[in-house]
């Protein structure tokens, strides 16, 4: 699968998408779901939790292993994808359609800098 051009990517295999309202939607990449194998459990952050970029924020468990998910940006968790938590295998089916959590940045300048520090699709693809 191609990594969509409209997303930014962390080297730790999360994707981030800036929404029109300024919030950032986060998921895991297709490479990550492929490497993990059958996903059976998502531990998503509590709504209202404040995280820093690079902080452990969620856990994705496959039959094989548990893997920490790091927030690529700083801010407050404003939404989680409960439908994904209820059907974790949906992440395997389409990792770019099934998001995990959404962050509202406290500081938009800092957020822009954090997004700038992520990889674009081509650069991320080159790391795989």
């Amino acid at each position, binding site marked *: 699968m191609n990594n969509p051009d409209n997303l930014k990517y962390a080297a730790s295999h999360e994707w981030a998408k800036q929404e029109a309202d300024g919030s950032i939607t986060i998921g895991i990449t297709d490479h990550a779901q492929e490497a993990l*194998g*059958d996903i*059976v*459990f998502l*531990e998503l952050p509590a709504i209202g939790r404040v995280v820093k970029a690079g902080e452990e924020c969620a*856990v994705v*468990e496959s*039959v*094989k292993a*548990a893997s920490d998910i790091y927030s690529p940006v700083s801010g407050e968790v404003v939404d989680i994808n409960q439908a994904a938590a209820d059907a974790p295998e949906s992440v395997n089916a389409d990792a770019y359609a099934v998001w995990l959590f959404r962050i509202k940045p406290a500081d938009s300048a800092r957020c822009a800098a954090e997004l700038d520090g992520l990889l674009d699709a081509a650069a991320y693809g080159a790391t795989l």
Partner: protein
Amino acid sequence: MPLRTPLYDSHLAAGAKMVDFSGWEMPIHYGSQIEEHHAVRRDAGMFDVSHMCALDLAGPDSRAYLRHLLANDVAKLTTPGKALYSCLLNESGGVIDDLIVYFFTAERYRIVVNAGTAVKDVPWMRAQLKGFNAELMVHRTDNHDPVAIIARQGSNARERRRAGHESVAMIAAQGPNARERFWTAFPDSRAATATLGIFQAAEWNGWLIARTGYTGEDGFEITLPTAGAAPAWQKLLDAGIKPCGLGARDTLRLEAGMNLYGQDMDESISPYEAGLKWTVDLKDAARDFIGRSALEGKNARPVRNQFAGLLLLDRGVLRAHQKVITPQGDGEITSGTFSPSLNQSIALARLPAAVAIGSEVEVEIRDKRLKARVVKPSFVRNGKPLL
């Protein structure tokens, strides 16, 4: 350089994802581990288990030797082809390995040990041959033979191969329809194998076909010469048996409550603390097997723990080495996974002996304590949940 089985190319052709397992390059899955798991529970799947090490024991003292070597008693094997599961113990009653021994005559046996442990088992087994008129031969090419590797390193120049003693491959075909599909692939084998009971084997066409497995399902384990492995695999594939990787093998054996050596037991653990008391045969008081003095009598090591199953009641996944908190003290998960058959997480655990089956305990997962129920260490057999 990782070791490869004779089926390596067959795995790549079937789209396997290969991983290192005890120095062997083995398929972990061919796409979806969960689908492979269900194939074995519902229909038929097959595993390449050629990394396991087959040995032949021959000589007039073979039976006496095995009665000394093994915690289970081969004297109960009287029908040719009958198999027995046993622990190989050290002097202090710790588990060196678990294995299956097949009886042909009192002077001829086949033994199959784990892949990663063969390198320590074979020298140990040979050392115990002293005083017995019997010979132990390994079914491996020199490059794959742990003994040959050791011999090349200069420690034992006597190691040798008997002429014609060939390297073998092993395929486990498992599932409710595995035997029927096997007979579709090899119709001529049906007469020799149709009446085999559980844990019984027959020799056919130079193959050993055994009604054994490590999944909790019916099926055959086939040992055959290396050269015939890839064509046989293809025929089984054509008969509708799905290739399955080590990932599914692990979830299947865990659901069946079968121990994995190195994870659920090792040399520091006695079979009594690994749920394997049923494999230790003390009936013949005169039988002096290795480790016996550590398991009974005044010098017996204390049994403080039991081997139990855990069923996670909260959402999450149990994993090896997580701490289990009980009113009677802490225990530890030895193997844990998500059970595809139960759609719930399960584990095997070593818990204080006083913890009752049916009681509720807590498991520490990251920063949380999740609730789990203590159950007998067997979750699914023959396609059906046991809980």
